[in-house]
C-alpha cells in the first residue's frame, strides 16, 4: 500500500502526567483524516489501554499508528520485562496487580481483553526480559451511529 500515513509517539515510563497523550494524538489525527467516528473511538480506547500498560509496566514504549484508506494499524512496543504466560494474560480478570490494588478498582485484568474486543485483528508477542509488541488493526468500515 502506497498511501499510508505513519505517526509515532514515544511514551516515557511511569510518567503519569503525560499518560494518554499518545492515544489522544492518534485520536485527533484520525478525526482529521475522516476515519468513521466509531472506529476512531475504538482505536482511542484500545491505544489508551496499551499506552497505559507500557507506562505502568514496561518503563515506557512507542505507539505507532499506520493509517491507510482501509484500516488503521496500531503497534505498541516496549523493551520491558515481558509477559511470561500470554494465554493467561489474555483471560478476562487475569491480573498481576496485588490484592489491595484490585480492591481499589485497579488491575481488573481487562486491559488485554479490552484491546482484543475493540480491535478487528489483535496480535501480541512477548519475550520475558526483552519486551512486548502488540498490534491491533481497526478496519474503517462505518458503523451505524
Amino acid at each position, binding site marked *: 500500500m502506497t*498511501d*499510508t*500515513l505513519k505517526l509515532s509517539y514515544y511514551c516515557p515510563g511511569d510518567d503519569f502526567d503525560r499518560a494518554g497523550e499518545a*492515544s489522544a494524538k492518534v485520536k*485527533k*489525527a484520525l*478525526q*482529521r*483524516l*475522516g*476515519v468513521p*467516528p*466509531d472506529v*476512531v*473511538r475504538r482505536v*482511542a*480506547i484500545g491505544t*489508551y489501554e496499551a499506552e497505559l500498560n507500557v507506562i505502568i509496566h514496561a518503563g515506557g514504549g512507542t505507539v505507532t499508528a499506520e*493509517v491507510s*484508506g482501509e484500516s488503521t494499524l496500531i503497534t505498541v512496543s516496549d523493551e520491558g520485562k515481558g509477559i511470561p504466560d500470554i494465554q493467561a494474560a489474555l483471560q478476562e480478570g487475569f491480573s498481576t496487580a496485588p490484592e489491595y490494588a484490585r480492591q481499589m478498582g485497579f488491575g481488573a485484568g481487562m486491559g488485554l481483553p479490552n484491546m482484543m474486543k475493540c480491535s478487528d485483528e489483535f496480535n501480541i508477542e512477548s519475550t520475558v526480559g526483552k519486551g512486548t509488541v502488540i498490534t491491533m488493526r481497526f478496519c*474503517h468500515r462505518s458503523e451505524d*451511529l
Partner: protein
Amino acid sequence: MAVEFFHSVTLQREKCQGCVACVKVCPTEAIRVRNGKAEIIGDRCVDCGACAARCPYHAYSVVTESLDRLQDHEYNIVLPAPSLYAQFPEKVARPTIWQGLRYLGFDEIFDVSLASEYIALEIEDYVKNYRGGRKPLISNTCPAVLRLIQVKFPELIKQVVPILAPTEAAAIYVKKEAAQRLRLAPEKIGVWAISPCPSKNTNIHQSVDVRDTQLTGSFSLSEIYGLLLKHLGEDEEIKVSTGSSYGLAWGAYGGELLSAGISHGLAVHGIDDVYDMLEQISMNKVPQLDYVECSACQGGCIGGILAAQNKFVAESNLRGRIRLLRQKEPADREKAMARSMTLKDFPSSKDHVKPLVPRPMMQLDDDIVTAMKKFERMEEVLSSLPGLDCGACGAPSCQGLAEDIVQGKAHEIDCIFKLRSSVHRLAQGMLELARQIPISHEPEKPKEER
C-alpha cells in the same frame, strides 16, 4: 450537499475590535479574525454563546423574537421556565410574575417546571430499563450540548437519551390542549418560550432532536425580565398549575438528576467542562455512571447569556424558591411530584423525538488519501510555527493556523513571527544588493564596513 445552519448568535461588525478573545473560547474553533473582524464559520458553530459571554465589546448579539409577533396569533401562550423565576428573589411570588406576563400580552401561562416532572419520569424509566448499551447515558436537554456532540463527538450519539426537553414537551401538550379547549386551529395559537440562551432559540428554528416542534419562537430572558420589572402586579388571582420543587430544580445544574431520582449520575455544566466530560465518556473512562446531565452554561440554564441576573444570584434565588416549596410538599420525591402531575395525555417523547445526525467537522478532506497528504503538510507547517498560540493571525492556535494554511484559507506569513523572519530575510537580501556597487563607481579606497 451543503446545509445552511441557522444561528442565533450574530456579530455586530461595527462593535468588533478584532481582539480574538472569542476565537480563543470557542469550543469548536468556529471563529477566525479576518480583516480586523471576527467571522463565524457557520458549519462549526453550535450556538453555545461562549463567544458572546466572553466578548469585552459586547459585539455579539443573540437574535430572538420581538413582542410584536404576538399580534400574528389569535391566542398566545407563554412557557415560563425556572430560569425566569430565578431572576427574582423568592419573595416575589410567582403570581405577580404571571400577572406581569399577562400584562405583556400573553393570554395563557403554562409552567415548564410541570413538564419537567413528566420528562424526569421518562428519564428515570429509560435509565432503569437501559440494557446492554454503552454507559453513561447523556441528557438531551441542552441543545448546545447536542450540537457539540454532533460536531465533535458523533460517536456518542447513541448514548443521548431520546427524550424531549421540558419546554418542547410543554409546547406540544399545551398547544394541542388549548386548541381543543378553545376550538381554535393550532396555527392560530402562538406558543412562546422565554429563552436564557441562544441555543434554545436556534433549536426552535432548526431543531436537531424534535420532529415537530410546537414552539412558535422565543423571547430573550433579559428582555422579558426588564419589562416584567415594570409590570410586576399586585397578587391577582391568577391560577397556573405548577410543578413541585423537583420540577423547579431543573433551572440549575443537578435538577435533572434530582428529579429523575438518579443516584449514580453526574451534573456537568459549562461548555469546557462538558467538552472534557464528553471526552472521558468517549474514552469509556466512566462506564460506572448511569447518567450525565450536561448543560453548556455554567450553573445550568440560569447561567445562560440571556439571563439578566448574575448566575450565583439566580442560583440563590432558585434555591430559595425550592426551599419554600419543599416546606409545603411531601418529603418523598415521587409523592411530591405526583401531587402536581395531574395532566391528561401528556405527550410521550417517543412520538416526537428524532435521532441526532452526526455532523463531523474535523476532517481535512472527504477523501482519506487527500486528507492524509493535507495532514502531513499540516504537521510540517505546524512544526515551523512558533507554538505560542498567540492568536495574532486570527486563528485560535498554531494548529488552527496550520489547518487554515493547508485548506488554502490562510498564509504562513499571517503568523507575525513568520512575517518578521521573512522581512528580516528580505532586508538582508536588500542590504546584500546595496553593497554591490557597480564597478564603474567603485571608490578608490573602499571604506571599512561597520
